[in-house]
């Protein structure tokens, strides 16, 4: 993905720049998407306007160009097919700098830190299974208190129970790190309802955990691993009719949540047969110190140890990462290691960043592979 000056003198139209500036000034929506990329447009008084996005390999700020003497600012970004990026606009007026959502872009993505504007490149279509389907019967989410000896306190765990739940059936169990964030920012409940309704995954019980101190607990913490791999399954088994085999147990997480998932499965082999690891923060060093912040020190200790003796933390792992993430190298590096140790791995790279909508869009591929639904069995 490269940036370049806006195509003001389009040879195809031969319109003079002033005419194109008028067209851009009246556009109701930004960015303007075409097969080669996107053109961001900002209208307003400013001394400078920058695109702020988090694309590995590109500068964190890319300057818009003012069109003549107008208050129209544009920036052309070459964006490969099917890309999706999240961004904000940095507007500079005198000594004041403000980061804002793109006023001409109605597409927003929320995350625990607020919201970003979303640029969908040519060819990207939001998957229909991420949108509410009136025909799909909805499951419910309730909360249970779980006293944890490992953590020395009670934790509240959300529990998704599928529609048409019956005690006489047995269900797979999926445990999700940052589960409430998945609900809020990755439409997890809608996705589960839809995939179950479409028979692409079986009805399943899903435990949603949320750590009050995730950067510490998710970074290779043994007490947290015990909570996730021993205490949660035991409590869920006591409360719900669950299938007993590791193949019916899944653990999922994104970013540090992926680290916590791999760590818990590694420390307790056999507890989970299926892992979903999304954009894992798998910092490591082959020699010397890793090149990330101190927050990653315990992560790198765990990942380095894991790389030395991976064992077999699960039978199947779905691993994914956006190619616009700085973590792409770490995630790619994990694939041959896992495969070498007899783990079935599906690895998916996409033109997206480190964000919840990337993780949302990967859920169908991950869950249908790890927990194939009765679609294979149903002939209505």
């Amino acid at each position, binding site marked *: 993905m490269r940036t370049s000056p806006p195509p003001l003198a389009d040879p195809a139209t031969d319109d003079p720049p002033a005419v194109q500036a008028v067209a851009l000034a009246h556009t109701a929506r930004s960015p303007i998407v075409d097969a080669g990329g996107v053109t961001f447009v900002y209208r307003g008084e400013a001394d400078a306007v920058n695109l702020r996005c988090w694309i590995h390999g590109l500068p964190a700020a890319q300057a818009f160009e003012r069109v003549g003497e107008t208050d129209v600012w544009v920036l052309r970004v070459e964006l490969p097919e099917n890309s999706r990026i999240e961004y904000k606009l940095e507007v500079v007026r005198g000594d004041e700098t403000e980061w804002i959502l793109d006023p001409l872009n109605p597409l927003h993505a929320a995350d625990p830190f607020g919201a970003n504007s979303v640029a969908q490149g040519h060819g990207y279509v939001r998957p229909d299974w991420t949108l509410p389907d009136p025909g799909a019967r909805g499951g419910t989410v309730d909360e249970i208190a779980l006293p944890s000896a490992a953590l020395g306190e009670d934790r509240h765990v959300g529990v998704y129970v599928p529609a*048409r739940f*019956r005690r*006489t059936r047995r269900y797979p169990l999926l445990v999700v790190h940052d589960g409430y964030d998945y609900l809020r920012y990755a439409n997890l409940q809608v996705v589960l309802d839809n995939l179950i309704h479409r028979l*692409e995954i079986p009805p399943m019980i899903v435990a949603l955990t949320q750590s009050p101190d995730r950067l510490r607990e998710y970074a290779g913490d043994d007490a947290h691993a015990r909570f996730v791999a021993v205490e949660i399954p035991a409590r869920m088994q006591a409360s719900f009719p669950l299938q007993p085999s590791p193949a019916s147990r899944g653990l999922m997480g994104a970013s540090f949540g992926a680290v916590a998932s791999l760590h818990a499965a590694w420390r307790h082999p056999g507890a989970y047969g299926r892992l979903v690891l999304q954009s894992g923060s798998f910092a490591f060093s082959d020699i010397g110190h890793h090149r990330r912040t101190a927050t990653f020190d315990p992560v790198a200790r765990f990942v380095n140890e894991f790389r030395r003796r991976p064992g077999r933390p699960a039978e199947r792992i779905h691993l994914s990462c956006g190619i616009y993430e700085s973590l792409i190298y770490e995630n790619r590096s994990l694939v041959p290691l896992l495969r070498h140790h007899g783990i079935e791995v599906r690895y998916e790279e996409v033109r997206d960043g480190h964000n919840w909508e990337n993780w949302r869009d990967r859920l*169908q*591929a991950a869950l*249908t*592979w790890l927990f*194939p639904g*009765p*679609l*294979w*069995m*149903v*002939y*209505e």
Partner: protein
Amino acid sequence: MQDVLILGPQFRAPNLRTALAKAGLGGPAVAITAGWQEREGELGALEEHLAAPVVDLRLYERAEAVFVQDPELHAACRARQGELRRMQELYRARLDHAKAAAREMLALEDDSAPARRARRSAIGALRRLDAEHLRDLEAMHARFDESWSPDRRPLLAGQRHDLASMIAAAAVVFVAGGHVAVLLNRMRLFGLGPVLRTRPVVAWSAGAMALSERVVLFHDRPPQGAGNAELFETGFGLVRDVVFLPHASSRLALQDPRRIGLMSRRFAPGHCYTLDDGDELHWHRGRLRTASGARRLTRSGGVLPAGVAA
């Protein structure tokens, strides 16, 4: 002798009423909708289409009640399901290799005698694997029936008797589609195979699969990627030497001659019939009497109308 009417899916464009009229079937009907699981017995659309009442045999509900009251039998059924699942996993692992070999041989641009022999041998290996799996399944069911005879389970015996009486009093039995494993499981639990041979039967989708001898699962376009068509279970054999392929237009790569040719040769001499909306096949006295819409897969990888000789 028995009439068996096999239809395509009924939920979008039902043709049950016209098919019954053409076959000269009518009168009080009972239905098996256990494949619909929790939706069992939701017959509103079907009754509206027929403009006549239909009595559901409620196999799914009956089984649930039996399991609650006879936990020993329930545990045995679960154990059997576990064993069947494991058998299927192991068969599937072997199938992967056998199917890959057959595909590779069929893809050879080589018509020499050794290549032809290699192709025949690879398909033969696939057929032997299927046959072995089928024998294992039959043996497994026979063992279970012997160990858990309904004569020793009064509750189950009572339900079987009740169902046999209801079927005997009906002019026609419908077997609807849905989850084919659940449907087969419940029909087998209540011993409906022999009973169904006494009445005219109309079956569609998974119901049709259950009436054949070999139940073959298939889907070339699931989200997790295409799997191999796999022999899943023994059916009740009311119609012989056939494999039914419901929703073939959406689930099968019918335009891929290599895949279709392999499927046809794998299950020969049985015929593979597609069953899509509006399709209809009528067996009378064990012979295919009329066919409309349904297609048959050919050895060369094409599809022909069901009634036409290759």
